[in-house]
């Protein structure tokens, strides 16, 4: 097990699991923690790595009032045991056979499963057109910041919206995303894009509604709500 900081509040947990059966981009694992007196807590975390990466990566955002995330980010150390169930999910999964064009929309830590999709897209050399819109409070909060901003995904149209604060020379979107931005960013409905939206529930619901209002097919919009504040 290897642990790396992504942002001040987020950590990558890299796991080498000899018995891992492999997974599909977008799936998650259920992590269960057990205290010495038997008390248990369980939460789902999206897999951040692509199937081709060879090891399993979970990117966990620490929620201040969280039950599981503070443990994973602050306490967990190499050598500790972690109980996982998975990989799980078939609905919020993308692989090349599903085609595109592919529209990925992430709010905060919602980027995690979408990043697995991007890594998979890259690894298989897919020619499906991809656009990513990531909404984050600030550059400091932006998970996978270097990957996303420094061209790790050549050929992917990546837009980042900073909603709370931004550097003076920021040329991306300033402020929250809205219906107009989605209309501008998405392919026209006639191209039938396949959309994956992930993040806090309110963000996902607003984005999904705007896509539908812009004429996109509801059946080609897949969502993964993280709940009120994230994972």
């Amino acid at each position, binding site marked *: 097990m290897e642990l790396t900081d992504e942002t001040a509040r987020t950590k990558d947990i890299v796991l080498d699991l000899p018995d891992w059966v492999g997974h599909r981009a977008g799936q*998650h694992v*259920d992590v269960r923690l057990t205290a010495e007196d038997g008390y248990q807590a369980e939460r*789902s975390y999206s897999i951040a790595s692509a199937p081709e990466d060879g090891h399993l990566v979970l990117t966990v955002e620490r929620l201040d009032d969280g039950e599981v995330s503070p443990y994973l980010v602050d306490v967990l150390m190499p050598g500790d045991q972690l109980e996982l*169930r*998975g990989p*799980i*999910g*078939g*609905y*919020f999964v993308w692989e090349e056979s599903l085609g595109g064009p592919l529209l990925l929309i992430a709010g905060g830590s919602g980027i995690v499963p979408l990043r697995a999709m991007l890594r998979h897209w890259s690894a298989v050399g897919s020619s499906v057109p991809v656009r990513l819109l990531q909404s984050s409070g600030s550059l400091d909060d932006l998970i996978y910041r270097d990957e996303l901003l420094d061209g790790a995904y050549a050929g992917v149209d990546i837009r980042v919206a900073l909603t709370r604060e931004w550097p003076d020379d920021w040329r991306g979107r300033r402020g929250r995303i809205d219906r107009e931005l989605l209309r501008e960013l998405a392919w026209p409905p006639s191209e039938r894009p396949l959309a994956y939206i992930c993040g*806090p*529930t*309110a963000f996902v619901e607003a984005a999904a509604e705007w896509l539908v209002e812009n004429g996109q097919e509801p059946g080609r919009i*897949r*969502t*993964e*709500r*993280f*709940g*009120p504040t994230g994972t």
Partner: protein
Amino acid sequence: MDALDGNAIAGVLFEHFGEEMTMTRGRCAHCHTASRIGELRVYMRAPGAVARCPVCGKVVMVIVQIRGEPRFDLASIELLHPI
């Protein structure tokens, strides 16, 4: 309380049915619309998990843990062969 998607119960459904269920379509007994399990609106933080039809909002599935054993009530959803 914010809803989650059917993904949130994917793990417990997998353990019960022995297969991945989120792509399976189910017909709501109230409004008769068919949706994928992954599209159901799930309320997890309760004495049980309550899955509601994304179209009419009524309860279609409830999963409770009785003495540590999951119990599934699918009385209001008709599972259809995945298309």
